[in-house]
Every structure is written in structure tokens, then in C-alpha cells.
């Protein structure tokens, strides 16, 4: 219609008027929107006031430190400071990917995460399902308390327990092996034993506590679903498979997304407590590598590059997991 010349010429003066009107309307709209936002703020200011501490925390502890990330691309020296250090582009990243220790750490991280996910992720779900089947309330409470307990013990003490348990002289593991005539093994110096011990320790420490999330999800399932199934003739086993598990599946998926996002966040204090140079070969992960390079070796810029790489990979992983989940299961974190 606008390509019709007659229309344009005949509507000439009118169009101008219209343009004016449109501009005026837009101005008014904008003004009224500002007004609305103002009114809204005035009315709900308490809610926004409550947000302030969280925003401050985010800014001070998460956003402000990002300023320092730039040293990953700089030849950083403490004396010159972050801003004054010269840019050097991707040099640190090149060094990183030519560093055998870093590549080893990356490989170890991925392997340990994968095993952790494979063996560690299902255990809390399994525990929650088992707790749910316990009918005796007293026994259930006691069992739950016992498996929650390790979560509340400091990692240092947990590591102490593990080291003692696997010690070749007095450890319970070697004692038991001794009964069967097996010679004492110094487990914590053997690279091939580090991963099973580390992953086993993680499961022992956290699985019980992680099961709380699933127990809460199970508690949210409407009891009439089970009653209806009972009348239909379902066994406890069938109810678990056909009602409980599908009902908590969204929770499982969310936990999985979070877990995948944290895949590079191996609990590195536990590694530091358990590893030794003899087991670096299988035990050294990106975070322990960063720790040794950055804090112990003083190569802050190089360590920042490794850390940034870690963060970028984690970000991509979360986004991917979330997208896949949204597409296939209608469940997503955002």
C-alpha cells in the first residue's frame, strides 16, 4: 500500500500529522511506563530492599573479581598491578595446551568426573528409594542419621580416616586382607588405587546428604497415586518404577544438570589431602594444578588462564545439558 504514489501524495499532510502523533504517543507511552515503574518501585520497595544484600554479594564476590580475569591475557606482575601489566593475547593459553602436566590434569579431571558421575550420581537416588521403602519409622530415622553423618565431618578428618583405614600397618582394609593371606598394599601410593579411593570417599561423604533432595521430591508425590495403584494391584516394586521414579525424574534431571555444570569442580581439597607426588599421574586435576602453579608457584597469570578455561568449559557444559533436557524432558533449570 505504501508503494502506491497516489496514496502517499494524497495522504501527504495527514502523514505528517500522523508521524507527529506517533512520536507524541511514544513519548507519552515512555513517560507512562517510567511512571508505572516508579509506582511499582514505590509500592514494592521492601521486596527490592531485600534483594540488595544478594546483589551486593554477587557484585563484590563474583563480578568484581572478574576484573582480575584479564590477567589471563596479560604478562602480569604484582608490582605493576592488573591494569598496567602489558597485554600478551593468548600466550598463556598456548603455554597451557603445550604443558603436559596441564593436559594430564585435564584428562584426570574428566576421567574422575565421569566416574564420579557414573558411580556417585545414582547412589543418593538409590538411597532415597530405599529409605522410602523402610516401613519402620525408628529404623528409617536411625539409618538416615548414620548416612547423613559423614557430610558433617570436616574433609580433613575424613581424609584422616581414609588414610588410616588404608594404611599398610594398622589400616582395617589391610588387616582384613591379611586374614585372607593377602600382603599389605600401600594403597595411597599406588596411582591405580587413587581414583577408586577418591570416588568411594566422595560417595561415602556426600551420598546420604544428597539423598535428602530426592526424599523431599518423593514426599511431594500425592499419596492417592499410590493408593490408586494399590487398588489396581501394583506391587511395591511396580509402584517404585511406575510412580516414584517418574515422579522424581524432573528433580533427578535438575540435579544432573547442576552436576554436569560442576563436572570440572572436583572437590580439590580432598585431592590435596589424599594425593602425593607418587599418585599425581592419576590424581592431579585442573584445580590442584592451578593451585600449585598459581598460589605455590606464583604464576598468577598462567593460573588465571587455566581457571578461565575451566569456567568456560563448565559454562558450555551447563548450557548444553540444560538445552538437551529442555528439549527432551520438558525439564530445565531456566
Amino acid at each position: 500500500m505504501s508503494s502506491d504514489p497516489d496514496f502517499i501524495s494524497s495522504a501527504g499532510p495527514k502523514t505528517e500529522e500522523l508521524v507527529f502523533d506517533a512520536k507524541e504517543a511514544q513519548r507519552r507511552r515512555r513517560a507512562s511506563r517510567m511512571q508505572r515503574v516508579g509506582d511499582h518501585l514505590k509500592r514494592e520497595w521492601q521486596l527490592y530492599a531485600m534483594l540488595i544484600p544478594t546483589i551486593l554479594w554477587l557484585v563484590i564476590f563474583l563480578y568484581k573479581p572478574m576484573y582480575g580475569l584479564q590477567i589471563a591475557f596479560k604478562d602480569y606482575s604484582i608490582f605493576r598491578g592488573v591494569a598496567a601489566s602489558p597485554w600478551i593475547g593468548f600466550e598463556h593459553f598456548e603455554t597451557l595446551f603445550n604443558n603436559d602436566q596441564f593436559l594430564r590434569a585435564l584428562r584426570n579431571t574428566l576421567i574422575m568426573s565421569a566416574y564420579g558421575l557414573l558411580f556417585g550420581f545414582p547412589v543418593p537416588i538409590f538411597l532415597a528409594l530405599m529409605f522410602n521403602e523402610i516401613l519402620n519409622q525408628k529404623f528409617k530415622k536411625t539409618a538416615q542419621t548414620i548416612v547423613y553423618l559423614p557430610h558433617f565431618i570436616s574433609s580433613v578428618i575424613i581424609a584422616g580416616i581414609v588414610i588410616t583405614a588404608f594404611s599398610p600397618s594398622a589400616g582395617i582394609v589391610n588387616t582384613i586382607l591379611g586374614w585372607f593371606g593377602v600382603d599389605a598394599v600401600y594403597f595411597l601410593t599406588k596411582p591405580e588405587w587413587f581414583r577408586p579411593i577418591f570416588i568411594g570417599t566422595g560417595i561415602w561423604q556426600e551420598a546420604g546428604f544428597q539423598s535428602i533432595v530426592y526424599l523431599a521430591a518423593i514426599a511431594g508425590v500425592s499419596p492417592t497415586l499410590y493408593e490408586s495403584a494399590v487398588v489396581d494391584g501394583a506391587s511395591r516394586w511396580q509402584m517404585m518404577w511406575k510412580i516414584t521414579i517418574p515422579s522424581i525424574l524432573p528433580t533427578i534431571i535438575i540435579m544432573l544438570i547442576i552436576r554436569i555444570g560442576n563436572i570440572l569442580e572436583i572437590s580439590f581439597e580432598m585431592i590435596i589431602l589424599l594425593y602425593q607426588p607418587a599418585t599425581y599421574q592419576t590424581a592431579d586435576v585442573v584445580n590442584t594444578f592451578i593451585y600449585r602453579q598459581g598460589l605455590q608457584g606464583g604464576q598468577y597469570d598462567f593460573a588465571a588462564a587455566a581457571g578461565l578455561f575451566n569456567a568456560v568449559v563448565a559454562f558450555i557444559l551447563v548450557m548444553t545439558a540444560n538445552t538437551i533436557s529442555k528439549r527432551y524432558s520438558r525439564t530445565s533449570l531456566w
Partner: protein
Amino acid sequence: MSGVQLEGIVKAYGAVQVVHGIDLEVQEKEFVVLVGPSGCGKSTTLRMIAGLEEISDGDLTIDGRHVNRVAPKDRDVAMVFQNYALYPHLNVADNIAFGLRIRKESKDAIASSVEEVGEILGLTPYLERRPADLSGGQRQRVAMGRAIVRRPKVFLFDEPLSNLDAKLRTQMRAEIKRLHKRLGVTSIYVTHDQIEAMTLADRIVVMHDGHIEQIGTPMELFLNPANTFVAGFLGSPPMNMISAQVVAGDAGPVAEFGGQRIQLQQIPSLQNGVGRPVTLGIRPEFVSVADQSDPAKVRLEVDLVETLGSEALIHASLMGDPFVIRTDTVGQMHVLDGISGFTIQPHLVKVFDAETGQTLPGQVLEQ
């Protein structure tokens, strides 16, 4: 004989007894409605029949078999719950098929059953949808489908329409009735809604505080309530209750209250009851309105006349208590304009013992 018999059924939670010994015999193909105020033990009774609650005492027989200790799945009953109990992760077809899959029926048999039930309930276009994408009425229908598809001996319904809005409730009520006619399965239906009970039931069981107050057809209960509780519970608007005393009149017993009198039936229990304090029960529908010209009327203080078209509701008070009249309007508008009281035939006045609330014997209204 797929009847259900309850003999002295008791339910106690610890020391608290909530159902106090219920006797009920449901005939094959009968539609029985348990009705009563909230908390009177209807659901508990139904759940004991389903096997979801243990029976504390008494005997339960389904289809001639003693089933107190029989697992729910082996009682051959199906239950429809108030909140539908649909599996959110399954589509309509799978929800309906759930019970059959549990019983490991063949794929073909399941498919054809689901199709048939879908057709009966008008769910065919929705078979692929998840419950979240259905309206309340459709969800209710799926819940019924889950029950029907198993072809049980007995249907148990626990307030299946309570979550629906008034219009849908009326519609689904009719549908349940039709379904019962078509399938002819023994049904026990729990509701707190007396209109649902009146419209659906072959027989109504009125419950109160864990007891059965009365059992009978809807009209039996409406015309001949056994006591003031049943009289007040069934019918809407509810029966008017007046405290009165029986005195001897010129033409047999008369009820006297606040200086006014109503003629009563000449039956022995009333003739011998002179001086007795009673409660009169007067249905809003059973009175004739009267204006100034009728001297024999019971006088009322009229607050409000609501004209609803073919009928009118008159809100009045009698000795300070509310009194409601429901009457036809056609040909009566001149009376309604000047209404000041009512008249009633003696046999339509129900007389209850003032203390026990029980109907005095001998007053039977024929349907």
C-alpha cells in the same frame, strides 16, 4: 451376586473410634450413596471397603466372599478419587491402561479396552494428551476410565465431583448416572452434597458422626426422615424446624407454639402424646401461602419474597427463627403480595421427639 455386605464395621485409630459399627447391604447393580457432613466417616468406610484402611472390627463381604483380610487388588473393586489420582507423566491412554498393564494383560486386549473406554467417555480425541493439558471435567473422565477399564465387580467413588465447578458437576452427575445404567456395576458413592445423593442414588445412606442415621430411597428419606438430622440434611432449602408442645384440640392433637396452633394427624403416638415437647418439621414446599383473608393460618413475619420465575422463596421468621417457604408463583401472585402466613395439611407436618430427635411412630407419607 456382586453385592457388598458390611456387618458391624468399626474403624478405630488407636483409641479413637471414628466409625462405630456400620451395617449395610448393597445389592448387586445397586447405586448406593453415602452422604453426610464432612468428617462423619464416609471416606473411611469406603476406604475400608477398598482395602486401603484396615477394618478394626466387623465383617466385610464382597460378592459372597469374606474379604476383611484380602488385599485390595484381589477384592475386584475400582476406586475413583476426588483429586483424580492421574499419573502426570503418562498420557490419557497410558493412564487408563495402567491397571491392565499392572495385571500384565496382552497388548491387543489393552489397546482395544482403552479404545472402547475412550469412546464410552468421549475421550478418544485426547488419548495422547497428558493430564496437565486437560480440563477438570476431562481429568475426571480419565479417572473414571481408569476404573471402568478394569471391569470390576464394584465401583467406589470418593467425592469424585467435588473439584469441579457447579455446572460441570451437574453435567458429570448425569453422565455418571447414565454410565451406571449402561454398565450396571454395583457402585458405592461418597459425597457430602445432598443434591448429588438425591439425584444419583438408588438408595441413600445418611451418616453422622460415624453412625448410620437412615437408609432408604431418596424419596423415602425425603418424605419420611427418621429423625431431625436426616430431615435437616436432605432437601434444599432445608426443612423448617419449630419447637412446640402437643395439646388436645377440638379435632384431635394440636401443636402449640408461641400462641399459635397447627392441627396434627390423628394417630395414636400423637393422641397419647398430649403435653409432650416436640419438634415440628415443615418442608418449605409442603405449605400453602395465605394472606390476611385466611383466619386459620400460622402467622409469619415476612422479610423478603424472592421471585424466581415459576417459583418463589419466601424468607420469614417464626418465633425469632428463620422460616422458608417455597411455592409456585403462577396464579398466586395476589396472595404472595399480601402474604402474612401459611396453612398446612396435618399429614404433611412431621413431628419429632424434642429430646431424641426421632420421628414419632406412625407418620408415613406415601410417595
